[in-house]
């Protein structure tokens, strides 16, 4: 940089410093979507209503229950190199072996691990630390495919099922959780990659859609529940059981980011932010997804 441009930089910086304070109050510069043609809007609403009507029918008998049953078996069985049961060794935050209500009170801080952990991360931690499974082997096949469902997916589904109809209450009074929440908020807003996308690009405003799919504004309490409700979810496409860890992973894929490492700090931070935003809402249990 030559002398001349430094001089310009300084003068601009001075101008910016005064402009900076006012910048935050300005409404977003993105143009407001014009109203869509009435015929198209009507069609959309009919479709959405139809989806919702039949979603109820399908939730009445959800194949997710099959995975809850499998997860219960895995929780109670003595397994792994150390041949111990998670039910006898694993603390999900409410005491060893206590499952009821644990799901809606996570992510939370675990002193034994020195980390804030979401449910899946905690279960994997227990499988590794208590049962002696290999973390690398678990991370090699983290999510369900059309040929196999990882044990931790069924375990998450079981644990989630035992928080059905309970209120989401991430312990945000805990300073450790608060700190991770703030980091998650920043991860949510971070734009990068070839398309300049952040989570917030699609999930930071209310009332928008990608194709026919309604996008929740996950920064708003009323809508944040939608990142939580229905997970873990039985996904109709492929007929497989998927967790929130998977959801975050696949969002980053569509964001054109590289892949978040399985059960990493970043994913926990994001889940802490999203779940705490949904605090106070009622969780309905494992769901069904498109």
């Amino acid at each position, binding site marked *: 940089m030559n002398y001349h441009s430094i001089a310009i930089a300084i003068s601009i910086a001075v101008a910016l410093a005064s402009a900076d304070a006012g910048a935050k109050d300005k409404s977003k510069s993105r143009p407001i979507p014009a109203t869509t043609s009435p015929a198209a809007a009507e069609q959309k609403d*009919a*479709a959405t209503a*139809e*989806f919702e*009507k*039949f*979603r109820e*029918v*399908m939730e009445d008998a959800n194949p997710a229950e099959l995975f809850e049953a499998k997860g219960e078996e895995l929780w109670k069985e003595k397994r792994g190199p150390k041949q111990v049961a998670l039910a006898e060794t694993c603390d999900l935050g409410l005491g060893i072996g206590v499952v009821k209500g644990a799901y809606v009170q996570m992510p939370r801080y675990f002193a034994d691990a020195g980390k804030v952990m979401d449910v899946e991360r905690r279960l994997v931690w227990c499988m590794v630390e208590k049962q002696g499974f290999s973390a690398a082997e678990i991370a090699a096949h983290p999510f369900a495919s059309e040929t196999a469902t990882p044990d931790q997916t069924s375990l998450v589904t079981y644990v989630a099922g035992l928080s059905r109809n309970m209120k989401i209450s991430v312990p945000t009074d805990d300073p450790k959780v608060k700190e991770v929440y703030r980091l998650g908020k920043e991860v949510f807003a971070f734009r990068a990659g070839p398309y300049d996308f952040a989570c917030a690009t699609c999930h930071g405003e209310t009332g928008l859609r*990608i*194709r*026919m*799919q309604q996008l929740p504004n996950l920064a708003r309490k009323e809508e944040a529940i939608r990142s939580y409700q229905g997970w873990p979810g039985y996904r*109709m*496409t*492929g*007929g497989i059981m998927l967790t929130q860890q998977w959801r975050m992973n696949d969002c980053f894929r*569509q964001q054109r980011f590289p892949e978040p490492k399985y059960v990493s700090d970043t994913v926990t931070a994001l889940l802490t932010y999203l779940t705490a935003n949904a605090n106070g809402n009622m969780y309905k249990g494992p769901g069904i997804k*498109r």
Partner: protein
Amino acid sequence: MDLIRRTLLRGAGAGGALVAALAAGVLKPTAVFAADWNHGAFEAKETAATLKALGAGTAADSKDLVLNAPDIAENGAVVPVDITSKIPNTVSISVLVDKNPFPLSASFDFAEGALPDVSVRLKLSQTSNVKAVAKTADGKFYTVQKEVKVTVGGCGG
């Protein structure tokens, strides 16, 4: 005629060896049901051929056969379909998806006590008519159909 006997007779149509095996006590009844799977109907590639294989070539439209399915399916992989027959003496209900590679999805026989009412979830490869066919004890067939649209997914991928 009870279900087991009907099954046996149809099994005999598919191959007398089966009946012989059963008579000899080699096979348990459950194994007979598996062998009883109606190859002709399930492997037919067009609705007309399927109906023929079911013996339902001349099925008449009926308002007493109620088929409940979405106008637009959220996902073609799982389309909930519910069929109720108000036709007296309904003994079986079959469900077909016209545009699937093999139209016949499922077929149910009801014995004394069971209501002719079934719900099932189907795969639709594309927008298609879904058809229900009911059979009565006197061998008559009735049908009803409904179009189910299959939509495009999100994110184009």
